[in-house]
């Protein structure tokens, strides 16, 4: 028995029929074909599936799609400006070489943006430990996090300007 799901995805209204057991991440990837949101584990540990739901970062593998009824959903595809200009956090990841294989990157960037918007971290170099603790929910196997931390600090500064 499918359920009619209506929500805003990256600023556009979307209506789809959806099975009640469908995970939000599967809805995003398979039904909406927004494949920038990734699945890196099956225990809600890796954070590759992080999206923004009503402005807050959530792991979309840990929610049912129907829980997003009426919500504002932003995926990595909706982060850059309409003209293609990268979000300051995306630009910082590029400038700092904060990504290698790119698989964890969408989740990492979505978490980083949420971190800046929602949390009172110290994003100066002195606050490195805070940033590292805040990124604990996103696993990267390539970068050793060194440049991700730099990117988050630089992206945070750019977002505040």
């Amino acid at each position: 028995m499918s359920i009619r799901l209506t929500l805003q995805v990256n600023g556009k209204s979307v209506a789809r029929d959806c099975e009640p057991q469908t995970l939000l991440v599967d809805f995003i990837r398979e039904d909406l074909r927004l494949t920038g949101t990734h699945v890196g584990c099956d225990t809600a540990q890796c954070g590759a599936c992080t999206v923004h739901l009503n402005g807050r970062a959530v792991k979309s593998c840990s929610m049912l799609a129907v829980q997003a009824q009426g919500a504002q959903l932003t995926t990595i595809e909706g982060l850059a400006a309409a003209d293609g200009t990268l979000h300051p956090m995306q630009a910082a990841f590029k400038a700092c070489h904060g990504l290698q294989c790119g698989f964890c990157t969408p989740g990492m960037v979505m978490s980083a943006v949420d971190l800046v918007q929602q949390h009172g971290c110290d994003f100066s170099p002195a606050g490195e430990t805070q940033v590292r603790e805040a990124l604990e929910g996103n696993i990267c196997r390539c970068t050793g996090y060194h440049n991700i931390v730099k990117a988050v600090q630089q992206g945070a500064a750019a977002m505040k300007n």
Partner: protein
Amino acid sequence: MNARQGFIGQSTERREDGRFLTGKGQYTDDISLQGQTYAWFLRSPYAHARITKLDTAAAAKADGVLGIFTGEDFKAVGGLPCGWLINSLDGSPMKEPKHPVLADGKVRYVGDRVAMVVAETLEQAKAAGALIEVDYEELTAVVDTAKAYNAAATGEPVHVEAPDNRCYIWGIGDKDGTDAAFKTAAHVTTLSFRNNRLIPNAMEPRCANASYDSNADSYTLYVSNQNPHVERLLMCAFVLGIPEHKMRVVAPDVGGGFGSKIYLYGEETAMVYASKTIRRPIKWTCDRSEAFLSDAHGRDHVSTAKLALDKDGRFLALRADTTANIGAYLSTFASCVPTILHATLLAGQYKTPKIYCEVTAVFTNTAPVDAYRGAGRPEATYLVERIVETAAHELGIDPAEIRRRNFITEFPYASPVGLTYDIGDYDATMRRAIELADVAGFPARRAASEAKGLKRGLGYSAYIEACGIAPSSVAGALGARAGLFEAGEVRVHPTGKVTIFTGSHSHGQGHETTFAQVVADKLGVPMDDISIEHGDTGKVLFGMGTYGSRSLAVGGTAIVKAVDKIIAKGKKIAAHLMEAADSDVIYEGGEFKVAGTDKKVPFASVALTAYVPHNFPHDKLEPGLNENAFYDPSNFTYPAGSYICEVEIDPATGKTRIERMTACDDFGNIVNPMIVDGQVHGGLAQGIGQAMMEHGVYDTETGQLLTGSYMDYAMPRADDLPSFTVETAKGTPCTHNPLGVKGCGEAGAIGSPPAVINAICHALGIKDMPMPATPFAVWTAARSASTAAR
């Protein structure tokens, strides 16, 4: 040699980042094909069991099921091949039991493939899988690496072909000479090691999408893989018997590999086979839980080592004995990792005159073990750098000084374990690492820690690795069943734009940027005029792929050689256009010039002339401007460096903080320093992960994987690691490739584990600390050390 244009050596931002940052990357699971179906694998819940009944009748009738495949379907085809033959000391070839596509009546590890269900949807495939009836007769599981060859204790062997579970007993070096040198030693240091089993955990799980085109009688396989041509060759020629020209393998964006995606696996092989029956594309994406069970694991060595020294701390001889767990089946390169890639590195950076090493590889009821970032070289470096540091402490010699006394300083250097190092400057990286790590300030920092009741230690590691694998002739003599060259093609379009095709594969390394830098530098054309194509056997002429830090040294050189051919042909075309002698034409700054005159013609005009050959030296040349090259190196490359780790330990909790992690590497010439630093960072994280956190653990009775998720297997996270101090030395360019490059992908993972463990041992004043040095292990060691001190 043409003038450099300044693209090499720049930290150019990566061209691939745009798509990755905006969600536009195309990983295999992102690709869905018309008529897509889905596969699900039924896996063994037992480590070792006979399948006494396998009934798929009920499952076959379930909703949406299109086909069910079992070992019966693959009886007529080959097993998954092993690419490297190792001969035992007695001359007999390694035991090479069949590695079946799907289990052949027996399961040999938890996660072994029993059946494949193909259905309209993944949910239907899973639901049908639950209806397959399997009866197992459970057998005793062979799990423990060190005890595996005690067949009497382990019961039925993993394979009947290897009654004592030994795949081979191999040796290298001068045994008698080594024994004799020990008799003259003033001091002998002895250590035993376990190089812990690691689970690679590329963030993109393995994935494949296989389809069959009945009109063309041909197959297409999208697969998350590091070497698509090798995948095609192995699957076609050794397993399924598909003609190679009827098979296209595409490895699109790949989310990390670290070795685990080199290999031909049974999953995609079964899917390709089934795609002809199902006549629709079949997709499978590994769950993370499945990946833990079924990806090839890494390391898992048990070793003992003895180092003989004279009274001044000069090394006289090294003896090492290693038992390597290769798991339940021989994976693609499993046999060469503990031998060719491990024992040949036991000289390290030192002129130890005599070395002997014996390696016993054992089958166990665990997942296959194969190359994982570093592949044999981390195990060798751990053994050498732990025993050297231990010897230094035993003799009361500064660990840096004992290394300095033994460094190889004259090149080329033929080691006693078969390699010839072309060049290096080990003292230079050691000196610089000592400066960067502020070793001079360590006593004060240690005193400050002690004042707080904390322990502080410093550990060194001076690693060497052999990269750019390697000359095919040498590899062939050592048992390789494949060539180890690389192929590249330079296609110049009529407008002077350039497409490069490379057999190397990028899965995070940034080839689309660095290779374009190299070509821009050589051709003197803008990077925007160059695109890099890789990962598709339908586009790229051939390739051996990416592993062993070989992409730039081997793949990059193949491209350079093809570019050289383009320039050589271009000179002849330009000479014709400028009515000059071929030998008078030089190429610089993107222009062909007649030396000593102001006559010149730009690259794009020559390209256009090649394709619109109205005025063209038809008597001497064919039209067109397209060249390819195969490059087979004359030697390995030998990156080396010095790493220094400084830790602070709270003995009350065992909590260990890495205060400083310093890496000074000599990678020869550097194309993109930003990317090189990033590679070292990632390697350091994996090395520190091995040293302090990661451990693939099987229950020794049942063979169940106890570390099968991110809640049990400790993946390093941002707050587990420090920022790193990384510097590449001015360096000694490789002498035998035109770029002078050595490779940087694995160094961090090779050099760092012994530095970390040496630091912890130094902090606690103990001789050994098994990896991983978890807080519990460190706390336990700190307690016994303080009890002993009392």
